[in-house]
C-alpha cells in the first residue's frame, strides 16, 4: 500500500480520485499542447494538407507520407510491444510484472488510440474515410484494409483484457466510499472474488493473453507489410520489414514501459511495487530486443548495400552518407548506447534504475528516428524514373498535430490513473 498517499485521503490507492496540483499543472500543460494541435489540425482541415510539408513524389519532389505516418508507426509499435509484454507476463507467470500489467494495457490503449488518430490526421478526407473504410475496406490493402482491422482487433483485445483483469481491483475500490465508487462498481461488474471466478479468470486470461500476443504480432507485421510488399518504392521491399516491426515493437513497448514505470515510481513514490528488480527484468528484455534489432539493421544495410538496383543504392547512400546520414547514425548510436547501457546495467554490481531509464529513452528516440527514416528517405530519394531529388521538412502544423496527439495519449493516461489504480493492487489486498 502506498503510504505517502494516505495522509490526506486514506481511501483510494495510487492517488485515484485525487487531483493534486502537480498533476493539474502537467494536465493543463498537455491540454494546451492538445489545443495547439487542434488548431493546427483545423488549419489543415480548412486549407488542405498544403499547410504540411507533404508533397507528391515524382515531379513535386516531396514525400506524401511524413511525420504523421512515422509517428503512427512509432505509436502503434509501442502499443503492440506493450501488448506483447502483457501477454508474456501472464503466459510466463512473471509475477514481477503483475503490478505493471494495467499500466502496460493503458500504454497500449493510449498509443493504439493515438496511432489510429495519426492515420486519420494524415488523410485528405478523414470523415469520408471512416465511412468508406467500414463500407469498402479491401483485405488486399495492407494499410487500411488489414491493418485497420488489426488495429481495431488489438484495441478491442487489450480493452477486454484490461477490463477483465481489473475487475478485482475495481471491486476492492468500489467498497470504499468515494465519488468514483459507482464507476468502480461498474468496472467490477459483479466481481466477487470467488474461487469459481478466480478459476475462470485464470483460464480466460491465459487464452486472452495468447490472443493478445498473436494479435500484436500479426498487427505489427501488417504494419511492416505496408512497406515490405512495395516493389515500387526502393528501400521498402524486403522480407525483414515485418519481423523488424515486431522486434522494434517489443523493444519500444518495453522502453515505454520502463519510462512510464519510472515516472510512476517517482511520481507515486511507489518504490515497493516498482522495485529495482522490475527494472532489471525490463532491462533484460530491452537488452535482448535491442541486440536483435541492431542485428536486423546491420543485415538490412549489408543487403541493400549489395543491391543491384541503382535506386535502392541511392536510398542506402542517402541514409549512410547523404542527406539523412546524421539521422541514421544518430539513431544507430542511440540504439547502441541503449544496448550498451543495458549490458552495463545487467553486469554492474549496483542496480541503478536511472541507467535503465536512460537506455529506454535512447532506444525510444532511436526508434522514432528509425521510423522517420523508414518512411521519408525512400519517398524523397527512392525514385525509379529520373526525377530530381525530393525533399521534405515538416511544418509547424505537423509538429503541432503530433504534439497534440502525444498530449491526447498522455491525457488519456493521466485521466485513467485518476479513475482507476494505475498499478495492480497487491495480492495481499483484502478479499472482496
Amino acid at each position, binding site marked *: 500500500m502506498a503510504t505517502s498517499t494516505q495522509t490526506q485521503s486514506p481511501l483510494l490507492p495510487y492517488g485515484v480520485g485525487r487531483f493534486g496540483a502537480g498533476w493539474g499543472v502537467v494536465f493543463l500543460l498537455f491540454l494546451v499542447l492538445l489545443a495547439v494541435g487542434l488548431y493546427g489540425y483545423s488549419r489543415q482541415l480548412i486549407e488542405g494538407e498544403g499547410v504540411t510539408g507533404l508533397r507528391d513524389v515524382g515531379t513535386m519532389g516531396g514525400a506524401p507520407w511524413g511525420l504523421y505516418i512515422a509517428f503512427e508507426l512509432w505509436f502503434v509499435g509501442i502499443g503492440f510491444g506493450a501488448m506483447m509484454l502483457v501477454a508474456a507476463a501472464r503466459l510466463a507467470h512473471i509475477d514481477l510484472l503483475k503490478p505493471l500489467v494495467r499500466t502496460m494495457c493503458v500504454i497500449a490503449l493510449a498509443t493504439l488510440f493515438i496511432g489510429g488518430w495519426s492515420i486519420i490526421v494524415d488523410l485528405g478526407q478523414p470523415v469520408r474515410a471512416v465511412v468508406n473504410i467500414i463500407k469498402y*475496406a*479491401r*483485405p*488486399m490493402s495492407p494499410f487500411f*484494409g488489414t491493418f485497420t482491422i488489426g488495429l*481495431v482487433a488489438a484495441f478491442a483485445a487489450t480493452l477486454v483484457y484490461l477490463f477483465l483483469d481489473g475487475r478485482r481491483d475495481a471491486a476492492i475500490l468500489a467498497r470504499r466510499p468515494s465519488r468514483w465508487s459507482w464507476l468502480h462498481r461498474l468496472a467490477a461488474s459483479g466481481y466477487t472474488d470467488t474461487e469459481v471466478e478466480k478459476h475462470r479468470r485464470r483460464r480466460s486470461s491465459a487464452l486472452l493473453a495468447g490472443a493478445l500476443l498473436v494479435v500484436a504480432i500479426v498487427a505489427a507485421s501488417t504494419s511492416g507489410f505496408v512497406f515490405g510488399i512495395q516493389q515500387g518504392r526502393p528501400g521498402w521491399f524486403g522480407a525483414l520489414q515485418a519481423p523488424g516491426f515486431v522486434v522494434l515493437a517489443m523493444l519500444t513497448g518495453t522502453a515505454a514501459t520502463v519510462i512510464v514505470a519510472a515516472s510512476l515510481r517517482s511520481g507515486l513514490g511507489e518504490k515497493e511495487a516498482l522495485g529495482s528488480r522490475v527494472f532489471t527484468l525490463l532491462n533484460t528484455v530491452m537488452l535482448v530486443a535491442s541486440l536483435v534489432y541492431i542485428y536486423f539493421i546491420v543485415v538490412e544495410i549489408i543487403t541493400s548495400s549489395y543491391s543491384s538496383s541503382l535506386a535502392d543504392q541511392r536510398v542506402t547512400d542517402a541514409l549512410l552518407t547523404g542527406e539523412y546520414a546524421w539521422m541514421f547514425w544518430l539513431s544507430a548510436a542511440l540504439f547502441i548506447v541503449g544496448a550498451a547501457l543495458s549490458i552495463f546495467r545487467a553486469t554492474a554490481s549496483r542496480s541503478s534504475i536511472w541507467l535503465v531509464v536512460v537506455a529506454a529513452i535512447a532506444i525510444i528516440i532511436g526508434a522514432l528516428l528509425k521510423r522517420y527514416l523508414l518512411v521519408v528517405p525512400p519517398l524523397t530519394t527512392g525514385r525509379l524514373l529520373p526525377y530530381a531529388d525530393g525533399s521534405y521538412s515538416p511544418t509547424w502544423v505537423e509538429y503541432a498535430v503530433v504534439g497534440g496527439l502525444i498530449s491526447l495519449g498522455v491525457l488519456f493516461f493521466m485521466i485513467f490513473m485518476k479513475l482507476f489504480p494505475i498499478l495492480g493492487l497487491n495480492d495481499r489486498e483484502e478479499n472482496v
Partner: protein
Amino acid sequence: MRIAITALVAVGGIVLALVSALLLAAPLGGAPFDESFSNPRLVYAPTLAVIGVALVFSAAIVYELMPRIGDD
C-alpha cells in the same frame, strides 16, 4: 453451457471475421483486371469483419460475466 456459449461467440466471431474478410469483402489476389476488385461483394463487409474480431474477444467477457445459469 457457459463454455458452449463462449465457444459459440468466439467461433462465431472467427467465422464472421473470416467469411466477411475473405468472401464478402473485395476479392483478394491476382492482378486486378476489372472493377469488381474494387468493391466488396457485400457493402459493409469490413464492418462485419471488425465485429467478428471484436466478438472473438468479447467471448471472454461472456465467459466471465455471464450470470450463473446453473451449470456450476
